[in-house]
C-alpha cells in the first residue's frame, strides 16, 4: 500500500468516525447522519479498490476515471445543497409562524391578566 492510498484511507475512515461521533454527541440527527455515513463508506470503498472507479468510468465511456469521480461528487453535493435549501425554507416558514403565534398568544395572556385584575 502506497503512502497516498494510506492517507486517503485514513481521511475517509476519519470522516466516518467524525459522523458517528457527531451522532453520539446528539449534534447530528440520524436522518442526516445516514446520508453522510453512506457517503463515507462509499469513499472508503473507492480508496480501497481503484478498480471500482476504473470499471465504472469505462462502462459509461469515460477514459479518465477521476473525471467520473468529480462529476458524481459535484452533482451529489449540488443535490444535497438544494435539499438543504428546501429544509431551510421549511424551517424559516415554521419559525415565522411560531413567532407570530407567540406574539399573538402573549397579547392574549396580557389581555386575560388585565381582565382578571379588573374583575377583582
Amino acid at each position, binding site marked *: 500500500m502506497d503512502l497516498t492510498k494510506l492517507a486517503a484511507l485514513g481521511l475517509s475512515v476519519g470522516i466516518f468516525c467524525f459522523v458517528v461521533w457527531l451522532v453520539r454527541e446528539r449534534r447530528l440527527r440520524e436522518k442526516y447522519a445516514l446520508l453522510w455515513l453512506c457517503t463515507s463508506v462509499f469513499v472508503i470503498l473507492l480508496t480501497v479498490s481503484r478498480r471500482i472507479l476504473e470499471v465504472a468510468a469505462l462502462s459509461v465511456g469515460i477514459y479518465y476515471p477521476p473525471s467520473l469521480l468529480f462529476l458524481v461528487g459535484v452533482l451529489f453535493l449540488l443535490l444535497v445543497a438544494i435539499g438543504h435549501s428546501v429544509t431551510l425554507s421549511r424551517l424559516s416558514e415554521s419559525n*415565522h409562524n411560531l*413567532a*407570530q403565534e*407567540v*406574539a*399573538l398568544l*402573549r*397579547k392574549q395572556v396580557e389581555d386575560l391578566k388585565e381582565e382578571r385584575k379588573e374583575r377583582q
Partner: protein
Amino acid sequence: MRILAIIPAYNEARNITAVIEDLKSFRGDILVVNDGSTDDTAAIAKSLGAKVVSHPFNLGIGGTVQTGLRYAYEHGYDMAIQFDGDGQHRGDQVFKIIELVEKGEADLVIGSRTLPGGYKMGITRFIGSRIFHCLIRCLAGKAIEDPTSGFRCYGRKTIRLFSRFYTDDYPEVESIITAARNGLRVVEVPVLMRGRLSGHSSITRRKSAYYMLKVTLAMVVDAMRGRDLVGES
C-alpha cells in the same frame, strides 16, 4: 362595522407618538405590531392606549403586517387598514381607502400616490413601480398605478386570505397578485401622503435590485401555480 388599524413598527420610537396622534379621529381600534424593536416603540404605543403585539424577533414588514391581519381575523374584525409607523400616511386620508370596502364594493383598496391628486415619488421608485405595474397587468390583468404603496384597506375576505398567504419581504406587489388571483376585487384610490418624519426608506438602491428580481420571480412562479396552490379561491 368593526375596524382595526394595523401599524407595523420597527424602531419607530421617534415617530410612533405622532402616528398614533394622527389617528385620533379614527373610529376603530389601533394595533401596533412591534417587529422586535430594540427601542421603546412598544412601551410608548401602549402608554398612548394602543393595543400592542410584539414579535420575539424581527420578521420583516410582510410578517409584521400578517401578524396584524391574523389578529384582525382571530378577533373578528370586518375591516383592517394598514397605516405605516414612519409617518408617511395621513390620518385624514383614511376615510378614502375605507369607503369602498365598507360599501362592499372592494376587497382590497390601495391608497395611491400616482393617481391625479397624489404626489411625486423618487425616480428609482418610479421606474420600479412602472415595471411592477406592467407585470401585474400581464399576470393578473389589473392596472395598478402605485403597486408598492403600503397604505391599504383590507376587507374580511382579504384578511382571511392574507392571514394564510403573505410573504415576508417586499409583500406589497405580490399581495396584489395573490388577491387578484383569488378573485378579490382590488381597487386603487388617490390619496395624499407626506415625506417621512424621520429615518429613511427601508429600500436602498442596492436592495432595490434584489427587490425587483425577487418580486418578479415570485410573480412569474405564481403564474405557474394551479388554482389549488394559489389560495383558497
